């Protein structure tokens, strides 16, 4: 199947809801991208670069669209 244009990437985290200013424990907001709080990564290292992080976000989205196409011709929206 050929590559398809999915428009703007939707992978980035949306802003937190108004009711909930606080993020869950162990999570920080790194410029709109949720990441683990480095304070809890005391045993295993962190080493992925910004380039890798951006790539992973894009690749994940592309992969999920691929999964959709693999299983069905169309995904229906919630309202007809």
């Amino acid at each position: 199947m050929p590559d398809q244009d999915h428009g703007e990437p939707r992978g980035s985290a949306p802003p937190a809801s108004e009711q909930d200013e606080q993020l869950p424990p162990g999570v920080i907001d790194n410029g709109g991208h949720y990441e683990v709080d480095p304070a809890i990564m005391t045993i295993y290292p962190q080493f992925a670069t910004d380039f890798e992080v951006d790539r992973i976000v894009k690749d994940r989205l592309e992969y999920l669209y691929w999964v959709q196409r693999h299983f069905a011709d169309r995904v229906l929206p919630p309202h007809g």
Partner: protein
Amino acid sequence: MTVTSPVTREAVAELVDVCGTGRVVVAPQGRLIRAMVPAPFPFHRWADEAPEVVVLPETTQEVVAIVKLANRLRIPIVPRAGATGLNDGAKPNRGGIVVDTKRMNKVLEIDTTDWTVTIQPSINMLKLNELLAPHGVWYPDDPASYPVSIVSGRIGTGGWSLLGSRYGHVRDNVISMELVLPTGEVIEVGQGGGRKIRHSSTGYRLKDLFLGHQGTLGIVTEATLELYPRPEAEFPAFFGYESFDAGYRAMQPFCRSNLATLAGVILFDERKVQYLRRDDEAYIPEPESLQSIVAVAAYGSEGEVAAARDRLMRIGTETGGRYLGEELSELDWASRHDRYATPLHGRSRDRAVHMSWHCEDAAITYSQLPLVKRRWHEIADRYIAEHEVFDNWGMFFYTNNPYKGWGDFLVEIDIGIWEQRLDEHSWRAWTQLKREITQVSLDAGGSISACHGATREGEVELVPAELGGQFDLMLKLKRMLDPNNIMNPGKYLLDQAYHEEVG
């Protein structure tokens, strides 16, 4: 009591005669990697668990030769397909020969008239479906391991599919098989004798014996599978609820909707939602009031799925659910295979650590779900308080009944285990934890395992209690089919079949 022998020089020479040096593996790393499956593994005694030799056959005749050799020399053999199962079916308990069947992966026939595909069965389902797609058909077996798991292993474990309420599970979609029995005979089992017959009343229904036998009754070398038309449409929807009770109650109208295209209904408990908030960007910004989720998915022709979609959205509203949005619904559903075993989700005393994932999977009726949930969490939390190597990743409840959404559910508690720090003391605690959880399932009138199998220490001791007279019959059948106890010995307490005169 049967005696098993170590692998001898003679045995290795014979295996080389059968498969050639390129397909006989004695290298230590080749044996060590085939000691385990994803189920928690005692790495602290890894060397003790390794098989002695591995062989990679390519044909039924080679499998027959290997099985006959094993019988003659009294060497245990363990069939290994994908080794992505969550019980210990493919784990060798007594060294011996691992028969790694993954080179037997050819597609033999795609029948677009009678809608079957016949395969050498050690092919991955995703790959199989890529080959079937140009014909507009697919084989609808969708476990969490779909991108990597293998048909013959699914047969050995009697697997469950995320889409089972619509398409059935493995035992509904394997039409017939060719098997090498533990004594080396080759037989075909199906619905009667016609390879492509789905339903017959000729003779006994023996096929079921070999769906979920965990490799103890033979090695499947060929399989004919059911085909369905490729879905025109998919509709996934996630609904949020403010308590587990609300989610649990909401589940029932979804399950009873009896929509033909409804593939599954999944309930997430509050601990699972909490766990997902650790890293899943879809859940992180969700408010604290989101405590439980019911997820549904439908597949089929566009008109049917559109109608199902309208009904499901209405049920969501009527049950007080909050639709979590198109993006979360679509992408979380598409993530269903990848969201299980990610190690760094582990939390040990507020530190992120690599944990392996163990999924305890009982079959429990709807009425018993809240009780089992409460008791399982109480057990898990008690062990976690004492041992830093365990973590509680919450629970899922999935529709289990083939083609129907009601009745019984695959109940899963996900326990993380920090295997790098496991020792014999914590391993013992682990098996004790499992035993407690297993007892709860039996007390609730359930089954120890909905789909993984029950061969592991901690649960297998309770199999006779669950099965009663069925276990006695299992012993007789095992003794009859495998007189020398060489086919995956030591699983399911089946050694008991050889303790005295049986049958």
